[in-house]
């Protein structure tokens, strides 16, 4: 009968879903269900002052097609862009039945971010019996990114609003300040973004479908790999459609390699 045990009517303490208060964020404020990516309890905050790894050495691209979204990244992990620390990294991961995210930036922060976003999407679906819309996923995805040194692209599809066969593809560029910009055509992030953007500017077909967008995405990543020392070692391509997310590995010439890329889900 301790009066302090009384339940609180407050929604997780305050109306602060955008996480202005330290150690909280949009996910944490509504009941504190999911620990924040940037607040690791006893361990130093990923991407904070104690972050060990920080680099943007990467090229990631996203293209909108009429039947879905194509995401592609290079496969190199580097230390400060000067030493290739891994030649077989998968930097695009599924976070939702019909959405995936590419990551550029600090590896630790990016991994924590992906885990948290996946947990948000799963919890939403389990509680409500329907999938998160891209609007909701990108809103949460930008809110929980605040303060993390990661530059993701989020690509996904919503079912068509008229319940028909079509889909509504969406591509968002997110940033560490919580920004969220929807791209209607294509976007690129990472240290190779300028080279990749040039290639996309020339090759992107606004009328194209997912299959025709794949070679364009591969070309853009390969172009960046030629000139950006922090990008290379092949390409990972993800097709995001109403059927889900399909990932494939390609070598440094852009040729398809055997087997799907691991690391998703």
């Amino acid at each position, binding site marked *: 009968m301790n009066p302090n045990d*009384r339940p609180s009517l407050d929604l997780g303490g305050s109306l602060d879903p955008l996480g202005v208060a330290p150690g909280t964020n949009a996910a944490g404020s509504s009941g504190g269900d999911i620990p924040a990516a940037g607040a690791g309890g006893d361990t130093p905050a990923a991407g904070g002052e104690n972050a060990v790894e920080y680099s943007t050495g990467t090229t990631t691209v996203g293209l909108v097609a009429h039947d879905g979204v194509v995401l592609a990244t290079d496969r190199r992990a580097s230390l400060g862009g000067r030493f290739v620390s891994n030649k077989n990294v998968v930097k695009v991961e599924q976070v939702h039945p019909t959405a995936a995210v590419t990551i550029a930036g600090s590896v630790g922060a990016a991994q924590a971010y992906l885990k948290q976003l996946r947990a948000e999407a799963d919890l939403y679906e389990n509680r*409500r019996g329907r999938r998160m*819309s891209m*609007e*909701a996923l990108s809103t949460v995805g930008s809110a929980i990114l605040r303060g993390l040194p990661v530059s993701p692209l989020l690509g996904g599809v919503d079912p068509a609003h008229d319940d028909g066969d079509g889909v509504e593809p969406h591509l968002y560029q997110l940033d560490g300040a919580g920004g969220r910009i929807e791209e209607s055509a294509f976007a690129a992030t990472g240290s190779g973004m300028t080279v990749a953007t040039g290639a996309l500017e020339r090759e992107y077909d606004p009328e194209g479908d997912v299959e025709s967008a794949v070679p364009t995405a591969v070309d853009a990543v390969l172009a960046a790999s030629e000139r950006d020392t922090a990008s290379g070692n092949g390409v990972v391509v993800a097709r995001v459609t109403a059927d889900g997310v399909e990932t494939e590995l390609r070598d440094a010439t852009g040729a398809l390699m055997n087997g799907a890329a691991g690391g998703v889900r």
Partner: protein
Amino acid sequence: MQNSQQQAYDRGITIFSPDGRLYQVEYAREAVKRGTAAVGIRTPEGVVLAADGRLRSELQVAESVEKIHKADDHLGVATAGHAADARRLVDMARRRAQVEKLRYGEAVDTETLTKAITDNIQEFTQTGGARPFGCALLIAGVDDGGEPRLFETDPSGTPYEWKAVAVGGNQREAQDRLEEGYDDLQTVDDGLRLAFEALAATADGDLTPEGMSAATIDAETATFEALERSEIGAHLDEHGLLDEGSESDEE
């Protein structure tokens, strides 16, 4: 009325009686019945809420009897029972609707909001030192895609979905009228008519617009709109439910 053994189980809400009942929760339901009635009706074209309020004196300002509340553009809440308890839950619904918009960039749907409220109500049936909420809410809304929804919360914290429902005083009479008249409802106006008929059944047939309130949420616009008292009077007059002795506030 009870033996001393049973009274012991009354004292704490967190204690089950030997036959598995929570007396305080049941007493809270009695508190709901002591309030005036509130009615909700779902039609294909929208949801209707209507409630009868009680004025203690002709000097009381009728607008101060608040039974129907707007929670968000597309959501309304009608209450029965302890008005002060209900206000806390209504405020929670309003904050929850805003939190959802900030969190997901989307309007909260009626079921999600209802379950957030009932989860909170449930906490007050299992926590020492607290007392249950002595009120029932009718939560009406139009979800994304234009689907009208209507939910009830009760003092145990259980959510129920309804096509048409009455809570509060003389609930049985109102629910009987709803069951008789629910077939063939098409328009929001049909819903309003049946809602007023159900309220009339709780008040021996005739109603006065003073103290009454009503609101609609249209499926197409998904917008909460409260009726003016003069509009309520016009509806009652049209359907022959107006108490002869009363002057409606029409101007």
